[in-house]
């Protein structure tokens, strides 16, 4: 009897998730009347606006990831090593972006850093990019921090640090040669999640008026019929590729068995 119900549950899941996807794929192939074709994809991929916004968002994602790693790895490490009692507090802070809407964050940014403020970041494109990157980093913070903190749990941070110190290592060496390599899988999964978030993000990029991929998707969706479907499939494929890469990274780690002890 329970078997029957698990099959029912599975079927419902497949219908719920797969059917819209199949529908979208099917629709995206119908641009040419009367036959299936990749015309919509050709159109999208050939659009210079697509290429520009996508390249912009990829670069932003990479910068955000780099910034996130530099911010989160030392912080999570330091909290575990020196301030274990503050861990719940820090964890709570990193979760805040989940409950504060992006629109609130970005309006706060605009108020604080507008052209008549002390630090007029919105006055230049580069400054606005920087602001946007901080915004993305904030959005990705909950995922990044959790991933890294979980990674740190698999190693004995305190003892490994002391072992390295007794061998003469300073903080930079410890973080770079010891902590980061040992949480690399966790960092990578955080990085791919960040990538997926940044690629799809709309609110911040739109309000800061930067040429990102999210607003482009929205614009296309409002003006065309088949292309948005093709674009959705492409975006979906990118997200899944990120997930796949997380899996791959986990497998490639040579010493993971040691980490799990």
């Amino acid at each position, binding site marked *: 009897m329970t078997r029957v119900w698990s099959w029912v549950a599975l079927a419902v899941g497949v219908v719920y998730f797969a059917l819209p996807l199949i529908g979208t794929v099917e629709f995206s192939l119908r641009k040419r009347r009367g036959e299936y074709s990749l015309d919509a994809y050709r159109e999208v991929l050939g659009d210079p606006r697509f290429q520009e916004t996508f390249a912009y968002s990829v670069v932003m994602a990479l910068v955000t990831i780099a910034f996130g790693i530099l911010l989160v790895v030392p912080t999570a490490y330091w909290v575990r090593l020196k301030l274990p009692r503050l861990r719940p507090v820090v964890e709570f802070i990193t979760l805040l972006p989940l409950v504060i809407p992006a629109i609130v964050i970005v309006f706060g940014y605009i108020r604080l850093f507008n052209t008549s403020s002390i630090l007029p970041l919105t006055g230049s494109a580069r400054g606005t990019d920087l602001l946007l990157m901080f915004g993305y980093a904030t959005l990705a913070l909950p995922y990044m921090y959790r991933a890294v903190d979980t990674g740190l749990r698999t190693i004995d941070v305190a*003892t490994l640090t002391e072992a390295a110190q*007794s061998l*003469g290592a300073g903080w930079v060496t410890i973080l770079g040669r*010891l902590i980061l390599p040992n949480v690399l899988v966790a960092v990578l999964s955080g990085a791919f999640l960040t990538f997926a978030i940044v690629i799809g993000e709309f609110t911040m990029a739109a309000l800061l008026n930067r040429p990102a991929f999210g607003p482009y998707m929205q614009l296309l969706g409002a003006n065309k019929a088949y292309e948005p479907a093709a674009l959705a499939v492409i975006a979906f494929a990118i997200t899944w590729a990120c997930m796949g890469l997380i899996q791959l990274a986990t497998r490639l780690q040579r010493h993971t068995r*040691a980490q799990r002890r």
Partner: protein
Amino acid sequence: MPFLDLVSLQKSFGQLRVVKDFSLGIEKGEFISLLGPSGCGKTTVLRMVAGFETPSAGTIRIDGRDVTGLRPNQRNIGMVFQAYALFPNLTVAENVAFGLKVKGADRAEREARVAEMLRLIGLPDLGGRYPFQLSGGQQQRVALARALAPKPRVLLLDEPLSALDAKVRVSLRNQIREIQRDLGITTIFVTHDQEEALSISDRVVVMNGGIAEQAGAPFEIYNRPATRFVAEFVGTLNLLPAEVEDAAAGRVTVAGAPVALGRPVPPGRVTLALRPEAIHLGPVGDGAAALPGRIDDVHFLGSVIRIQASVGDRRILLDTFNRPGLPPPSPGTETRFSFNPADVLVLEG
């Protein structure tokens, strides 16, 4: 002046005084064990030497230089941890090379030293393995090699054998001692296992409640314990309560039998303490004291025969050597146990 000089070290965690006035001078090349029950502050002393804890008071000098304020990575001290603490992302060779790399040794020098170290610990072919591919004993030997590779001035080991099984423990402790002697490196070895401490140390420091109760050669600690704690903690002791008849002359009675100790004892009640090997079966020569008793059980261990017996209402243990011509007594035998009064430790109360 001692090579490693610990002067009046103290450490408190909040209200808790963990180390109270600990002083110890260690000569160059000496192998010292800190022995004591769990929680007595051994690790804390070691961590102060390593620089991981700052003493609440006191001074640490190495080779005449005050290092109390130096950070751990400036002290050039090798440390081996109970949990091995090998870097899981690095191979054995990279682990051993870590300290050399930090110091800026060039590649050729590093490789030569790593090979030398791996040969020293008897694992010359395992340089390419990752820590998780090694047994516990192998991991701890790699940890030793890693600590020794940068030629530290002092080697600290915090219960390095506790996580290993009995056989490996004995062979590895001997190997550690051999390597230590070869290199002539000044070493502090922390353990709660008295056999470990007694078997490999130049000197043993018995700690209790944050102080050093006694420091001395294993022979001295075992045979001339300075305090009741040391006497009871190190080795097995048979404790026999005695009534003092004549304190000045050292005459007491044990289980109704008179014993002449031949030296003054405190008045009132005392406890006579005897090592298992100091008690003999049957009467021995002149001057020996003898107590009546009964054999309860006999354990034949090979070269040694361990006998459980009773004197009055007290259970005692005695060890005799196996002698092929002399079968051990059978349980239930009434006999006399004798001992040399000079072997008796008199404990107050």
